């Protein structure tokens, strides 16, 4: 009994201590980001870093960089690629989770195969996309052999292309298994009982899928989808191989400025870094809003 009482009702000081320890652990995780944000802010104001004028804080650099059309074109392009990749990967992951949710060997094989890209580094995935989708890649060579095209120039541009289709496909392929893992877990823990209840009340297969399975999946996958979105929007290595030169994706533009031949332009990267952090923060805020809305509608 004593054991049960202490587990069920901890002293107030212990609960307070646990909260403090939790906040301290979170602060430790956030510390590198916080230090980076503070340093980037000082750099954006021209107080530290390469090309800093040494004349104190000035918002001139921030105003100049945020006034560039290329910055906003690159930002919108990165957001487009992130949104498209995340949406496709989320839909694909949901399909995998629903299609292979059973315990038959075929289901297990389907789940296992869909998880294989997890082991492939992003850079390797991008190189693979280049070798398959490039205008002189595997698909182009097959098309050439079949007589569909007469040379590389006739192959549709899927890498370094203005819409980033090759990059979107590569990132979708790479992120799908992570989301599929989450989706399968969500279905296993929350889906089955609700679906059976719906079927018991007379709902047909499509009604169960659209009214029960998908909402359950969506709510459970939302945090992972937001994580994928923010990661893709800020990832560099795949974009460096597959993204076009115009518009230049935000991570590539940031690196280009960071290594600009002119020392005075390198500080621009701090402004762009802060912009990327702000976009990630907005994505997290959007997630919190959607989650709260979901809780309200669920209640």
């Amino acid at each position, binding site marked *: 009994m004593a054991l049960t009482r202490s587990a069920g009702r901890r002293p107030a000081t212990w609960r307070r201590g646990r909260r403090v320890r939790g906040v301290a652990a979170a602060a430790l995780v956030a510390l590198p980001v916080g230090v980076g944000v503070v340093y980037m802010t000082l750099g954006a104001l021209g107080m530290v870093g390469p090309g800093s004028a040494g004349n104190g804080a000035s918002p001139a650099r921030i105003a100049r960089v945020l006034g560039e059309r290329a910055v906003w074109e690159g930002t919108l392009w990165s957001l487009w690629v992130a949104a498209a990749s995340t949406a496709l990967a989320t839909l694909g992951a949901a399909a995998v989770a629903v299609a292979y949710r059973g315990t038959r060997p075929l289901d297990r094989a389907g789940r296992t195969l869909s998880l294989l890209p997890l082991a492939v580094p992003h850079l390797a995935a991008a190189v693979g996309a280049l070798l398959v989708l490039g205008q002189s890649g595997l698909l182009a060579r097959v098309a050439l052999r079949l007589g569909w095209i007469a040379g590389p120039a006739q192959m549709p541009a899927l890498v370094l292309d203005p819409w980033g289709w090759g990059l979107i496909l590569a990132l979708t392929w790479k992120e799908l298994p992570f989301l599929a893992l989450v989706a399968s877990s969500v279905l296993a823990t929350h889906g089955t009982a609700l679906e059976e209840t719906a079927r018991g009340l007379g709902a047909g297969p499509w009604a169960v899928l659209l009214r029960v399975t998908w909402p359950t999946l969506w709510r459970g996958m939302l945090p992972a989808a937001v994580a994928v979105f923010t990661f893709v929007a800020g990832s560099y290595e795949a974009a460096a191989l597959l993204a076009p030169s115009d518009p230049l994706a935000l991570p590539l533009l940031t690196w*280009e400025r960071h290594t600009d031949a002119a*020392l005075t332009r390198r500080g621009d990267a701090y402004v762009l870094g802060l912009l990327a952090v702000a976009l990630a923060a907005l994505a997290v805020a959007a997630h919190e809003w959607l989650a709260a809305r979901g809780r309200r509608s669920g209640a």
Partner: protein
Amino acid sequence: MALLTSPRRRGPRARLLLAALLVAPSACAPGAGGDPLDAARLAELPWDSVVERARGSRVVWRMWRGDPAINAYVDGWVAPRLRDRFDITLVAVEGRGPELVNQLVVEREAGARGGSDLVWINGETFHNLRSEDLLQGPWAGTLPQAAGVDSASAIVARDFEQDPAGFESPWGRVQFALIYDPERTPDPPTTVAALTDWIRSHPGRFTHDQSFTGMTFLKTVMYALGGGVAPLQGGFRESDYQRASGALFAWLDSVTPHFWRGGSAYPGDVAALHRLFANGEVDFSMSHNQNEAATKARQGILPPNARALVLRDGTIANAHYLGIPFNAPNPAGAMVVADFLLSPEAQFQKARPDVWGDGPVLAPERLPAPWPERFRALESDPRAVPGDTLRAYAVPEVAPGYHERLAEEWRRRVRGAGG
């Protein structure tokens, strides 16, 4: 010594703390000996005592590590000899020019001891390092092997028109070249005018990359269209830049629609351009190093028949150098390594097409036998551009300001970036 003890700019304590947090890993790098004498003071000592100070030490060399041939030369040929002869442990780590400038700026803000002893630099990197007082010196002129340097060559003696002033030691010399495949292009253009006609008559088969090599190609065209290099020499002048770049951008406006993908996309770097060339998407690649066609063909990166050609209007030749950062913990070791790299045997090994193919900075006539003959024999490689041709059409770099302005304006006008 002042450089070692008094950072050029001191900021508030909070800034230093933040910077210290960011650079802590490099500041704590093992092997940072912390020689109390900087390179300028060491240069005043007898060379034997510099070698004695370096013996048994560790030298961290920050350099571009993107080419397996260069890495094999440094790790497999240079490092063992330094260990055998001087008991020096050479550790080559990644760090391109712009990145190492940024790293050193942050280290200075933190007051941190340096993480590298030697850096591979030239051009605008040297300009940035000197303007920020991030290099030790002068020291390079006192190296024993410096006596063999081809100091009469404007290419070696001036780094993008800058006087090295003993703050960097020459290491290699290269010349810009276009790369083509004689089987695909049996009669390649050899002038900018002929190249223009070729691009127009072969739509989609030519492009350049967005990085340093592509900008050097554009500078080559800028020289050719603007009456050569002479009008641009003598430091950066905005009026001269405007005149020369005006002709270049007019040329680009006329040929860009005939570029690969109509000029709507450009390969990110020269490695990507090599890939397009090797896969038959374009008919030309390019390189800063006239011997890269042969070395990359040997590595299987370029077609086996790839050849280099230099444009008769002149192609840009430049040298690359080694510097010692202001906070290098082991400047004596760095000086011994730089001296060894200048030796005839190290320069010859580096120049062999089957090793790296990087041009030597030594004057053969200043070297003892058998080195003059051995260096001349290198030029007889049938795959290499003849030495006479290289020298006849070599033009020097101009002040870094031209490169900076050209890169910025190209991005803005052609690619739409840069506001």
